[in-house]
């Protein structure tokens, strides 16, 4: 009798424990912990590894860099931190130029995306229901084709005897083909084309959620439509603008495929430099240092911006 009671008791306890785990405080912690665990394993850990490699020295071997620490015979551990890679980043103007160029290309592309995407998102949000879903579909439609194939398609359009040049020649607009491919223009075009949906969708989300009686109230209080847009619609869509800009700017800074395929020799973006260091030069530590600096350059201003936003709004902007 006693034994059975104990077994029953422990079985029930186990059941209760599992129930508690899923429903009570533990359950909540579990749900929160899972994504953090994901980030820890697939973001933080790789970053620590990259950081570690960036502090090593190039070696011929496998792996092609020196170990961070070594166990010496007289029971001491020798830690070697090589800051050489970072010094090289600082001293060689190539990296500085590449960083600057990346920020410039990403910045201008983001601005162009915003200027194109805002009217698009506005029109989609304000159009009648039946048309809205169709327009949204059209924005998302390019995702059904591989990103790489779409960038390759631009080569076909932009090259000397490509679609665009042949069309312009046939129409008599130009006498000889324009050099479009392998220019900065092509890179801008590629980035804006590829990232435009990432601008349109968050903007659409905030604009479609907006209460339209606010615009009626603004008109009622003496605002002409244009002023009502500036004083009501624009500030209320700020979260969408910020989200869209981040979604375009951050991946655009590190973009490698588009400048590699569409860009020319002077479209030197940091992603391309990183790729060259890693695969052509097989200099893993230098490539890692480039990556670490890129991350710091992006994360620090964004974190500061977020902090400022939280202070002024009293809540997070996204």
């Amino acid at each position, binding site marked *: 009798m006693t034994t059975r009671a104990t077994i029953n008791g422990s079985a029930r306890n186990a059941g209760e424990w599992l129930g508690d785990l899923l429903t009570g405080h533990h359950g909540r912690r579990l749900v929160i912990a899972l994504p953090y665990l994901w980030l820890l394993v697939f973001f933080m850990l790789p970053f620590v590894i990259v950081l570690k490699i960036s502090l090593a020295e190039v070696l011929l071997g496998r792996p092609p860099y020196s170990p961070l620490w070594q166990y010496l015979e007289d029971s001491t551990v020798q830690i070697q931190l090589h800051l050489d890679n970072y010094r090289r980043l600082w001293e060689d103007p190539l990296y500085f130029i590449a960083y600057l160029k990346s920020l410039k290309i990403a910045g201008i592309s983001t601005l162009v995306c915003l200027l194109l995407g805002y009217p698009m998102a506005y029109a989609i949000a304000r159009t009648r229901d039946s048309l809205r879903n169709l327009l949204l579909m059209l924005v998302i439609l390019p995702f059904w084709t591989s990103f790489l194939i779409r960038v390759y398609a631009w080569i076909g359009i932009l090259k000397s005897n490509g679609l665009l040049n042949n069309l312009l020649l046939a129409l008599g607009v130009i006498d000889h083909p324009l050099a479009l491919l392998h220019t900065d223009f092509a890179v801008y075009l590629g980035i804006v084309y590829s990232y435009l949906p990432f601008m349109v969708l968050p903007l659409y989300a905030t604009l479609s959620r907006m209460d339209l009686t606010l615009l009626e109230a*603004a008109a009622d209080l*003496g*605002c002409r439509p244009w002023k009502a847009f500036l004083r009501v619609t624009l500030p209320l869509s700020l979260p969408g603008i910020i989200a869209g800009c981040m979604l375009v700017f951050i991946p655009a800074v590190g973009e490698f495929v588009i400048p590699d395929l569409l860009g020319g020799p002077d479209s030197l973006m940091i992603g391309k430099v990183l790729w060259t260091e890693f695969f052509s030069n097989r200099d893993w530590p230098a490539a890692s240092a480039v990556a670490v600096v890129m991350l710091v350059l992006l994360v620090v201003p964004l974190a500061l911006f977020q902090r400022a936003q939280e202070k002024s709004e009293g809540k997070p902007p996204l």
Partner: protein
Amino acid sequence: MAQPKSAKAPQEPWRDPAAKPFVHIDNVTKVFDTTYAVDGVTLDIYQGEFFCLLGGSGCGKSTLLRMLAGLEQPTSGRILIDGTDMTRVPPYARPVNMMFQSYALFPHMTVEQNVAFGLKQQKHGKGEIRERVDGLLELVRMMPFARRKPEQLSGGQRQRVALIRSLARQPKLLLLDEPLAALDKKLREHTQFELVNIQERVGTTFIMVTHDQEEAMTVSTRIAVMEAGRIEQVGTPASVYEYPASRHVAEFIGAVNSIEGRVVAQEGERLQIRSESLGCDLVMVHKQPLPEGTPVTVAVRPEKLVASEQAPAIVYNTVKGVITDFAYLGDVSIYLVRLPTGQQMRVQLTNLARLTENPLTWDQEVYLSWLPDSGVVFPS
């Protein structure tokens, strides 16, 4: 009643044929696709009035209000405000402001920024704006909340901010779209009186849309009852309640007993009506002559009926029935009485004495009677 003192007996401009209306709505029609939201409405509203547009949902009252604000364009007809044709004038150029049902406060601005918004669109100095905003915040005791965002306010506070924001530009005409619908009952009653007070102090003409007849009766100088895009009756709360122009108005404003019958005879103003549903003859006062045999509906308010256990002295307008249900509401009690013919009558009695037990109760036989001038007759 919270009737504004200034609008009492001697000053009733709608009685004066020489008075110039402040708002003149001239045969206005609004068609959405194929439905007539507003159908040929003509209405005059006078300076300083607190006018109510009353009706059920979809009767066109809000559309009419939005056309006054310029948020909708009439399909045909004209709207004159203070003698100027405003029909095609956009909302931002009208001397009119509106308080929205949802309040439509700008969520990204503080209370004072919301109130100052309209003033900033006009050419006012910073000091002047400051002074006016402070005055308005004082008016509704919202000074301590000036720096808050709308989301940090309660429903009643938001309602007050919306009201003073719409008053800030000192409009010639203030439109209120169900301004109290979002408040709970107690606060709503309190706010009704506050609205009337504020209207008296600022002297602006108010036009309010509501579906709540009690609210309309409490605040307004005159009421327009709307149904299916048309105006059924315009009048003071008392005249609309006591002399409804149609069966619909009678049934919409307050409770009513509707009795079907047929005219038997008419002697001067006294109309004799035979009602099969009642099982007896009625005598009612009716000024217009009605030929014999005309089918009519007699409307008698529940509080005009007298219930008694003994048969009353008069022989007409008296029926006998059984109490099927009653509700004790504190100040009054409502009884439902079924007549032998099956007709249901609603009676309201004032609880004059302090009794914990009702003298009348279920299944009791009672006599109901009423006076000839206590109801209205509609030819049906």
